[in-house]
């Protein structure tokens, strides 16, 4: 349970002359809940993009479950067990709530195109399994009522929840959440914290969370990693981070330290 699931080793991302992420190393254990924080522009979303294969690190290595994920297409990394949500919600706009989640079940299908066309008993059976799976997920997260609505008709909080459900449909071992609390009011944030905790326990996932809201981060994370200008400047428990002068300096400027 404490073996490293995700491991970054001196990962670096350089765009031209700018090093967005520099020599970053950290570990997320299976079932762990880790927060990734830092001032704006610190490179947090870039780290997500590196892990999920949207970018290829210019140096360093990233391993998941013991195998390197560098150089793989994002969809293959997802099939290994990493799922994510996005900073700006990226739902499939023209699809219903149900179909958004169903799309994420694609990679686990055992039938191919010929079955989709011939529609034999194997197709029907697997279809039923998939639909039941999606129904279950929607029910757990309270989206059953909206199942046939266009996904855009959901409230902002509902859309964020849907994004998480969709990511879960890929049956990940590690879930990356990119600023899930953005735009939420305090009540919604408390709900979100409960949701993340619940998701982690129920599905036995590891969660890596990028978030600006300190209440959320301090409230649920077991460990926190702090980035500034692409480098890790601190790592520890919420209590340790709260008191760390480097972290305070990064957020508030040198004078406040």
């Amino acid at each position, binding site marked *: 349970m404490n073996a490293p699931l995700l491991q970054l080793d001196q990962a670096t991302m350089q765009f031209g002359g700018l090093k967005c992420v520099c020599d970053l190393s950290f570990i997320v254990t299976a079932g762990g809940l880790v927060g990734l924080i830092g001032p704006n522009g610190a490179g947090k979303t870039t780290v997500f993009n590196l892990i999920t294969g949207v970018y290829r690190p210019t140096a360093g290595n990233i391993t998941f479950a013991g195998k390197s994920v560098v150089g793989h297409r994002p969809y293959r990394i997802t099939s290994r067990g990493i*799922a994510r949500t*996005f900073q700006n919600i990226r739902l499939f706009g023209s*699809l219903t709530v149900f179909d958004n989640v169903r799309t994420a079940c694609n990679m686990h299908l055992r039938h191919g195109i010929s079955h*989709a066309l011939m529609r034999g008993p194997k197709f029907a059976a697997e279809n039923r399994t*998939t639909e039941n799976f999606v129904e279950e997920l929607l029910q757990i997260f309270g989206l059953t009522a909206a199942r046939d609505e266009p996904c855009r008709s959901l409230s902002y909080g509902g859309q964020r929840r849907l994004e998480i459900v969709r990511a879960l449909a890929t049956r990940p071992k590690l879930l990356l959440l990119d600023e899930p609390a953005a735009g939420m009011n305090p009540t919604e944030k408390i709900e979100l914290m409960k949701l993340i905790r619940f998701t982690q326990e129920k599905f036995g996932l590891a969660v890596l969370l990028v978030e600006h809201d300190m209440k959320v981060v301090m409230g649920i994370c077991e460990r926190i990693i702090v980035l500034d200008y692409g480098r890790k400047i601190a790592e520890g428990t919420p209590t340790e981070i709260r008191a760390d002068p480097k972290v305070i300096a990064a957020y508030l400027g040198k004078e406040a330290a």
Partner: protein
Amino acid sequence: MLERTKILLLAAVLASAAISFFAGSINPYYYDILISIGINIILATSLNLVNGYTGQFSLGHAGFMAAGAYGSAWLTLAFGYALGTSVAGTTALFVFALTAGGLIAALAGLAVGVPSLRLRGDYLAIVTLGFNEIIKSVIQNAEPLGAQRGLGGMVAHTNFFWTFALAALTVYVVLNLVHSTYGSGFLAVRDDEIAAEAMGINTTKYKVLAFVIGAFFAGVAGGLYAHFKQFIHPEGFNFLRSMDIVVMVILGGMGSTIGVCIAAVLLTILPEGLRALAHLPWLPDWLRPIAENRMILYSLLLIILMITRPQGLFGTLGWKRKKA
């Protein structure tokens, strides 16, 4: 939408066979229009898979039609004598030629789809246009295919049954494909490629698949066309022909198979209606060329549609605005 679709397909095929029986008594002019409608339904539905459902804006569909037309024509011409004149022989040859034409077109679709993968909307459109021109160039320089003179002498194998049975098949394939969990990959690619990849969907596979399947049916339509008109010419498969099909897809509403079929019917009848209009004695002379040159009206239709009702007749403009 499971067994029902198979039943509907079977019904459509049987109906086509039945109607085909009485086809002899249909006025030849209307018969021609009906066949054209069937062929256009295949073209529009197959293009809709690429443009509408997968969001890859292809402007070169006529090129795939040409590949199928010339491929099948060459085969029936080359082997026509060999298989004799028995009904079974000629039908078998026709089916073989149509399939082969479709496969040749599918290969062309592969050749176009793979390089186009990384290209954004505008560039993809121009490149597919370019490939259309290239295919046309190749045909224009190929002596065995008649080059600039065109290719003629095909036997008129195409009849009501084949046209509409294949049209029904095309609709069946596209609808079944898209309305399945497997097929939701196409829509995901259209809506948000990055999110689709993140959800485990191999976007490359789906884009290429859309191109290949779309091209296959365009090739089949080409084969039907070649054995209907009995003469084909490279200029008949140029950018304007591609635009004809694109207008059908846009008018019908991208991503709505029913809409696209209806649009195919409307836009097959429209030029005939315009032609009739052009011959009306009381029409002022200056209006006559406009009635005859359907492109003026088509282009205006496109512009007005895009400004007032971009989702066409039946489409839902659901996909997210892609930032540049």
